[in-house]
């Protein structure tokens, strides 16, 4: 039990569509253990993304708790939660969400910049840049670091997003259908990329509806009717 990094308990989330409540999550319980690659599957629209956002402290559940090492992220101060998002969570969005004005390198450096003041940054710049280039090389984008996101293919953007998520050495990486928009070959590449990260000890929670990818995970959970079906 001691190696549970993240524990979500009885998470509820309801969206209001006009007057009609859409109960997407109805008491989800998830444990994420250190070093595992956990796959969350489920039908389209069943609430996988919603769950992952809540796990990453990017959205507020109606009920329930999400604990990082026993600390409830929704009970802490906003400033501390911001710090947690910056240092402990690496989030890969379903639709990449890169900053269009910045080039690949700058996008990847952004988590470091967010975490530092001007002076700290000027001291750490060189190291940070070396690290960013290293990560980009690992995801196979060393040739592309000065391109802007709109000059990249979907798979490349996804890899930039992964690199960015890895930048601050997060305790866990949350990836929302990282292969969903890609063809099989690209998807395979991304999967391999995640696998190799995982092999190096990175904890990963992966949302997918692709059975092949789910099969590659250490553990699978399925979201059905707003609950986890083991």
């Amino acid at each position, binding site marked *: 039990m001691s190696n549970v990094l993240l524990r979500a308990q009885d998470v509820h989330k309801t969206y209001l569509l006009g007057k009609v409540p859409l109960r997407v999550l109805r008491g989800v319980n998830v444990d994420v253990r250190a070093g595992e690659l956990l796959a969350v599957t489920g039908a389209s629209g069943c609430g996988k993304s919603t769950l992952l956002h809540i796990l990453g402290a*990017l*959205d507020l559940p109606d009920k329930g708790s999400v604990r990082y090492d026993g600390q409830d992220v929704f009970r802490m101060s906003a400033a501390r939660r911001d710090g947690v998002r910056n240092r402990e969570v690496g989030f890969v969005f379903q639709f990449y*969400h890169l900053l269009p*004005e910045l080039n690949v390198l700058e996008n990847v450096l*952004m988590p470091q*910049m967010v*975490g530092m003041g*001007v002076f700290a940054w000027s001291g750490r710049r060189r190291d940070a840049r070396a690290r960013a280039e290293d990560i980009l090389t690992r995801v196979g984008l060393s040739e592309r670091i000065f391109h802007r996101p709109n000059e990249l293919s979907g798979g490349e953007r996804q890899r930039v997003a992964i690199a960015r998520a890895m930048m601050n050495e997060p305790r866990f990486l949350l990836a929302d259908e990282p292969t969903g928009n890609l063809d099989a070959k690209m998807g395979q590449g991304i999967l391999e990329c995640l696998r190799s990260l995982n092999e190096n000890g990175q904890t990963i929670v992966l949302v997918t509806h692709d059975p092949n990818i789910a099969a590659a995970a250490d553990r699978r959970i399925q979201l059905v009717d707003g609950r986890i079906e083991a």
Partner: protein
Amino acid sequence: MYKLFLTLRYLRRKWIAVFAMLSVWLCVAMVLIVFSVMDGFLENIKQHSRGLLSDIIVDVGTLQGFPYYDDFTKYMHEQLPDVVESVSPVIYNYAILRVKTGRAENITKPVRVVGIDLAGYASVNTFHDSLYYDKYYPGTTTFAPAPMPIAGLKLPPGTPEMPATTNAFADSAEYALPDPYPQAFARFKADHPDDPIVKNPKRPSVHSPDGVGYFENNFGQPGYEGKPLPGLIVGMDVIYSRKEDGEYERAMVRGEEIVLTMLPMTRKGTLAEDPVPLAMRLADESRTRVYQIDEICVYADFKLIQHMLSMDALQRVDGTMTKPRATQLLVRIRDGLDARVAKARIEKLWEEFCMGVFYDIPPQKYRALTDAERAQLRRGAREGWLTTVDPEDAILMSAVGVETWEDRQRGFIDAVEKEKVLVTILFLIISVVAVVLIGVIFHMIVMQKTRDIGIIKSLGATRWGVASIFLSYGAAVGIVGGILGVVCGSIFVYYINDIQDLLAHLNPNLRVWSPEVYTFDRIPNEVKPMAALVVFVAAVGTSMLGAAWPAIKAARVWPVQALRYE
């Protein structure tokens, strides 16, 4: 760190930033221009009203004037040394002015004659600064009778031979200034390179209709011709017309003859004798820059005017003398004194003075009387049943009032104050429009960036951090736009008259500032540093506020909500 980085990046990549800057720039320039011109206008009015009158005016309000003005002047100096700095008497009347020389063709027009003691008048107001020649030839403007100056054929002994090239002038009676002022003339030339006197140092004369006139005396001492004539200072717009560029078509020169026909008046206000024509000499020109004054006023020596109007001491049939009269006493009060306080004290002093004159009552005794008794005495004076003094005098003296320059200009100043309120309201509306415009632009910018805000927040940026990106964005836009606006607005205001002249040159209908309407012949063209600073700070503040409000709003939501924004 990311704040600065993103701010710079957004500024560089977004055209909309340029747009926002442009609108700040225009708003700042516009507000500064409107404010400067209005403020300058008000300042001008106040300054001129005071400068051309005096702090306090003791005025009878009728053309006959009032007697005992000189005794009262003395009495004021004695009794209120802590209030009164200097006093100068003035006579106002009307006359027909007639000029018949050279290019100033046949001018015959009604003018307002102001009889002043030149030195005394200069000590109570700023009239002296308005003189044209005196500025260049200081001390030469005088009302004293003088012949017309000429630099003539008769050269004083010992004058060096004239250079051959200038001999042409010697043939035709040249005019020159009464004294040699080569430096002054050099200065004049430098300041007025286009003045007809400089371009063509000749004046029209009977001898050669095209004109000879010579202002710099090359030949040693000048000569004079004709009978000595008393000096007259003429308002610039009386004899000259303004050209499109705001300067005057100056057609006369100093020393030329002007005839003034006046109407002498008895103390009752009836015509005392036939109108008296008086030949005078153009001593100087006055440009107060208040059109309503410059268009009608001419100034001559107080004593002379007093005499011409039969307002000096005259012998009665019984051999006694009447008291000389003046229309106004202009009083300059001591610096730092409140004009209202001074007015009240002078008013009281005048009443006591009158009672002393009328009834021989000493001030202490008068002060001891009851209100009813005083009212009785005053009525007696107004209705002229008095023993110790000429009843006519008593009636005139009872009509005298004491005013501050502000009371005097009350109607005008009130009108301008109203205008100021109106303009302030307009100004506020303009500001509101500017603020809304800037707010809308920033709202657009922030909305465009909502997704980015979501991303940055998901990476752990704080609410304040996100807001500060847009705050610095707003500040940068405000500072750049503000500086451009202040600079452009100031330049525009500085050259506003030239701009108007240029427009008027293209199409006369574009002349928006007319001296008849706005009193002053030039548009005020000064920008106060304080005003510029206030407008600038307001612009920066508004831009920051306009940016901060939508940014804070956007930064407050959960990252996912911002990300989902389309």
